[in-house]
């Protein structure tokens, strides 16, 4: 299990690197080498590290540990084909990590990041609609049952594309450089991660690489179903590249536009959900 975790960490970092490279190429820049994010994390971990004088020490460190813990847990939930409700729970709890990162340091930039993170809480609701729709269609939230259902009835991606689109938006809103990434926009330096440097930043990079890996992996498992692991990886890469296209071509939205877009997406999925329930 630990081997899979480490594999996921490095793959996730590599995916981040590919994401940056793809965005750079689309925008006509050479971009960094794809292993740049791995080097980045290592570099940060070698750097001198302390806790800012104004920070709430325990929270400042605990949030980093929590970030690592929840995404390792999420990975194991996928690995053991557990309940996607728990996955959804962990995804929501990630919000707490974002708040905690921003608020714990006392830095105004971090605080703005945290406030924006509260504002963009609407991005979590499409996932709820996704879970609800999947539950109504497959009758279970165990990943193993969902995979079995897809083996019998074909991939959910084709059965309910709007739900897949909702989850796609959810993943998009958590990607680096995404149009929805207002919490780490450049005008507030690095947003809620501004004050986490050195080892803390390295650990956060590890956690966020796990997050990217888990979200992509979950999308493939939930909407495509049980296929060989190599094929899963290829699909994850394709998914990531499509996300990179969106991130490269869309400007970052203002916080209010972000919330509007996410609320609209939620409303559309809710309408679809009601339609599914009525038909069923």
């Amino acid at each position, binding site marked *: *299990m*630990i*081997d899979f975790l480490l594999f996921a960490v490095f793959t996730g970092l590599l995916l981040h690197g590919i994401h940056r490279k793809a965005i750079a190429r689309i925008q006509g820049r050479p971009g960094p080498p794809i292993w740049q994010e791995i080097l980045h994390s290592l570099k940060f971990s070698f750097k001198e590290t302390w806790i800012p004088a104004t920070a709430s020490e325990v929270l400042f460190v605990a949030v980093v540990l929590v*970030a690592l*813990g929840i995404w*390792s*847990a999420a990975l194991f939930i996928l690995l053991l084909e557990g309940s996607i409700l728990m996955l959804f729970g962990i995804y929501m709890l990630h919000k707490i990590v974002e708040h905690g990162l921003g608020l714990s340091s006392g830095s105004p930039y971090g605080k703005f990041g945290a406030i924006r993170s509260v504002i963009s809480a609407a991005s979590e609701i499409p996932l709820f609609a996704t879970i609800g729709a999947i539950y109504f269609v497959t009758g279970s939230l165990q990943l193993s049952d969902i995979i079995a259902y897809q083996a019998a009835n074909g991939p959910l991606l084709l059965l309910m594309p709007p739900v897949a689109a909702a989850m796609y938006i959810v993943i998009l809103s958590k990607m680096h450089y995404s149009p929805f990434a207002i919490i780490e926009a450049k005008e507030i330096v690095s947003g809620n991660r501004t004050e986490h440097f*050195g080892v803390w930043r390295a*650990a956060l990079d590890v956690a966020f690489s796990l997050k990217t890996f888990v979200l992509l992996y979950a999308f493939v498992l939930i909407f495509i179903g049980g296929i060989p692991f190599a094929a899963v990886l290829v699909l994850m890469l394709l998914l990531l590249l499509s996300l990179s296209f969106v991130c490269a071509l869309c400007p970052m939205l203002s916080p209010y536009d972000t919330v509007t877009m996410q609320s609209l997406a939620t409303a559309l999925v809710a309408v679809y959900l009601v339609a599914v329930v009525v038909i069923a």
Partner: protein
Amino acid sequence: MGTGVTGAICIAAGASAALDMLPLWGAGLLIVVAFPFFVVLLGLWWNASEGEGDIPFIGY
């Protein structure tokens, strides 16, 4: 010290799950608890000291 202990817990949990000595969820729980500490402690173990930098800062 802590790095070694938490790392050992992670590896032991992974190995005993592979050898069917622990249920998978148990091993997962152990790793979920130990792995974050392992990552942070590993970094804190090998990171630069708080002493003088090797390149003196000469100002801009």
